[in-house]
């Protein structure tokens, strides 16, 4: 099963075989309402509860604070459900990731954050 959301500026794809969510592009959506489809996809993945979920944002070049909030909420929801481990793949070449991704580990200390 593949779940995906594609826009001219960004895409979010879940590949069930590898239990990997891949976010690419530029996300500058307007508030909770515009992020709702992405939140729904993340929610579904959380409920599928694979042993390990990989969140790959290496090619997500821009994320506004509303989008950062969506990532934070996903991590907290996975933490609260307590059924999946979480691996986050980031890129050291994308400035926002170096600044903001470290906060994910403060929310979920067992989360594995890898900068590639």
């Amino acid at each position, binding site marked *: 099963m593949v779940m995906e959301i594609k826009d001219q500026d960004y895409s979010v794809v879940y590949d069930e075989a590898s239990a990997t969510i891949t976010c690419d592009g530029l996300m*500058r959506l307007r508030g909770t309402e515009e992020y709702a489809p992405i939140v729904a996809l993340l929610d579904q993945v959380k409920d599928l509860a694979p042993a390990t979920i990989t969140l790959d944002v290496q090619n997500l070049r821009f994320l506004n604070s509303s989008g950062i909030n969506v990532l934070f*909420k996903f991590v907290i*929801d996975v933490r609260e459900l307590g059924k999946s481990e979480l691996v986050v793949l980031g890129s050291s070449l994308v400035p926002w990731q170096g*600044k903001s991704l470290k906060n994910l580990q*403060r929310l979920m200390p067992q989360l594995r954050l890898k900068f590639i």
Partner: protein
Amino acid sequence: MKFELSQFWQLGDEKMEKTFGEFLEPCDEYEYLVIHFSPTSMPLQQRWRNNGLSADFLSEYWATFLPTGGGPTEEQRLEFKGAVNYIANELLENVMKFSYEPADYPVSLGLYLFSDEFRFYTSNAMDPQQVDEFQQRVQRLLEEDPAELYLEQIEKNALGDGGGSQLGLLTMIGDYGATLSWRFKTFECKSGEATVVTTMVRLQF
């Protein structure tokens, strides 16, 4: 010359001015660039897309002014561009989200280059009903530990009702090390009273 609101807009007599944090008046003694527009001249959705364009342009443009030769490395340049892009975009999103339409007051984003820092200024009219609450919020941002406030807000948002994330200012402080301050000016205007808030963000480099 000081940057005066009345340069662009006919407002009545100033009734009250209040500042939070170390607010410094914008001045044109240094290099600066100001984007100034009416938030209601086109649909918000259409205007929203321009935020990204403006932030991309501003970050590319100002990165060329960073000293070269023994100056910043490519990595520092990339980091500077990322910071300007993120902060400019967040500030533009905020002025659009919180601009008070009945006041019909234009919004602006100005970027000023100094020898050792970069200053962003945004201005917009606020809903008079939201001024007190916002002032209480900025007071907390100035007085409390930003890291704790940041975590508190994230946990609150995760349980929340889908309102605004309120993470824009917190990420600027917590993730980008920016220093924020505010000036509120209340004026008489045709529709009664209007409060114009100017947010100043200082980014050291």
